[in-house]
């Protein structure tokens, strides 16, 4: 599915550069459900941005499917994001003046799908996350859990092969978090690769594998969540 080989990333802070990712090297297979954990400042957000083609890297290689993602033009990057990747954010990032249905339909708008068609498809995806009746509500009228479901429906509508979730439960209470993770697991079971960035061990425990980052380096990939220390802490 995706493979990172010796990826390095620097940030220019004032006069000196900060080495944020150091020789990051890992692989995610098709259909996996993987967590990326690390303390804040460990580089996990940067890694997610690179994985999501929202940011470029300085050296190494990032391969998504059969494509090397490197120095893409903005429009090419946009096209890949649109086609291959679905994003789920901690703060949902729904457009406040659009209804749930319109928010879900947005990626199809950028694919040039006609309005009627994309609204029909968006309706199906809202159904899938259990919010069919909320189609005409704006985000301000919804709870955090509902908003995140809308965001997930939006991430799914483009039929991505990869879902990138950045702290998807960070703004939710534990009960809602559990429901959102159930939803992500279900999506994963349908064959979509899911990558979750989190600092919450409970969330990581729900995945199949955890990649740990410390100071921009991968510190040992665990094959099974059973051996995940977070699991023990959660149960």
């Amino acid at each position, binding site marked *: 599915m995706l493979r990172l080989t010796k990826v390095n990333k620097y940030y220019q802070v004032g006069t000196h550069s900060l080495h944020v990712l150091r020789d990051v090297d890992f692989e995610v297979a098709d259909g996996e459900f993987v967590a990326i954990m690390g303390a804040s400042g460990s580089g996990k957000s940067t890694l997610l941005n690179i994985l999501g083609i929202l940011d470029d890297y300085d050296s190494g290689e990032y391969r998504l499917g059969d494509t090397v993602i490197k120095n893409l033009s903005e429009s090419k990057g946009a096209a890949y994001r649109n086609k291959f990747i679905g994003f789920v954010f901690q703060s949902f990032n729904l457009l406040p003046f659009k209804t749930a249905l319109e928010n879900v339909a947005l*990626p199809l708008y950028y694919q040039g799908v006609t309005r009627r068609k994309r609204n029909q498809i968006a309706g199906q995806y809202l159904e899938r996350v259990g919010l069919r009746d909320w189609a005409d509500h704006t985000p301000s009228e919804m709870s955090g859990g509902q908003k995140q479901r809308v965001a997930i429906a939006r991430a799914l509508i483009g039929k991505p092969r990869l879902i990138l979730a950045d702290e998807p439960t960070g703004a939710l209470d534990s009960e809602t978090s559990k429901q959102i993770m159930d939803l992500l697991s279900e999506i994963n079971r349908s064959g979509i690769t899911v990558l979750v960035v989190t600092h919450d061990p409970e969330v990581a425990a729900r995945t199949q594998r955890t990649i740990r980052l410390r100071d921009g380096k991968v510190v040992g990939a665990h094959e099974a969540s059973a051996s995940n220390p977070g699991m023990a802490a959660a149960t």
Partner: protein
Amino acid sequence: MFDLDKWKEIWATLRSNRLRTFLTAFGVFWGILMLMAMLGFGSAIQSGSKRQMKGMATNLLFCWGQQTTEAFDGLPPGRRVQFNTDDIELLRRLPSIEWLAPRLQLGGWMNNFTVGYESKNGTFTVMADYPELRHIISFEYEAGRFINERDIKESRKVVVIGRGVYDQLFEPGENPIGKYVKISGVYFEVVGLTRTLRSGGQGERDANTLFVPFTTLKTAFNMGNRVGFFALTAKPGTDAEELERQVKETLKRHHRIAPWDDLAIGSFNMFVMFGKFQTFFLVLQIVSWVVGGATLLAGVIGVSNIMLITVKERTKEIGVRKALGATPFSIVSMVMKESIVLTTIAGLLGVAAGVGLLAAAEAVFSAMPESPLGPPEIGLSTVMIAMGILVAAGALAGIMPATHAASIKPIEALRAE
């Protein structure tokens, strides 16, 4: 491709900041309204002046005698210059004169005469004229005709009266043609009733004037061979200023006036006057465009500014859109469209208000033929140009915010909380 969603997007953004949208739109609205008001005002002055000059040839030259100020050829200064019928022959030899009309006012310049008809009397201007005058000052005839060649040849006692004369001496509806009016004790048969095309003071004067054949006045009132002044027009394509010089030179030579004595012969050159008017109108028009355009530009800068702020506020939204697959082009086009829509709608309202304003001005000034301002004439082309400027201005206003929006990096946008 027409996509309702695009319009909904634009509408939603503009609506989410009503006050700001309104104020920005008002800037553009005001700008275009001012532009049109300025152009309309300029046009009103122009049409007002044209209305005043209507009925007069624009290549017209008047020439009259004054007093010499220089001693010349053995003659002392302070001598009164009196044109005579010999001058007519001399001037007719000048090739660039189109029409020559020697004129003489009974009793002298600005003196009125008592004219009577049956029991009524009035004081009017009496002019002795040649038929050529009608090529220089145009009249319309409510009845009859102007003086003709036979009148001149036979020194007939006929008269053409102005509308004001008719109103004062005749009963309403009475046919004046064939009636006899008494001018200073001599009876003249009325052969024509004129209606002037000029307005204002000149129109007033025309209406209260009686025209008799030049030769008749000479014999009937013993005016000798005097000529009061000359009215003449230059042939099309000739230099009216040069003609004025030639006419004066001819007259000076004949009347033994020093060639450098500029005060001996007075003149009024309509062509030069008209040229000055034309320059004035041109300057007025340029000023209108510059001032109006500057006001419009201020409005456009306002739009650009607001769009820039809007884009900054929407950093996150733009980031989200980019993450979902929006290309930089689609972002640029989104912001540009908002800008163009805003300026165009506001501008169209301004154009509509401007058209209304000008229509009102037209109604007012048309009803007041004596006012120095005439009905403004704003052509469709001017309106079209204004619209073109608006759309271009909208695009211009959108460029900077749009490129800024396109340069937003999704990560930075999504990080912004």
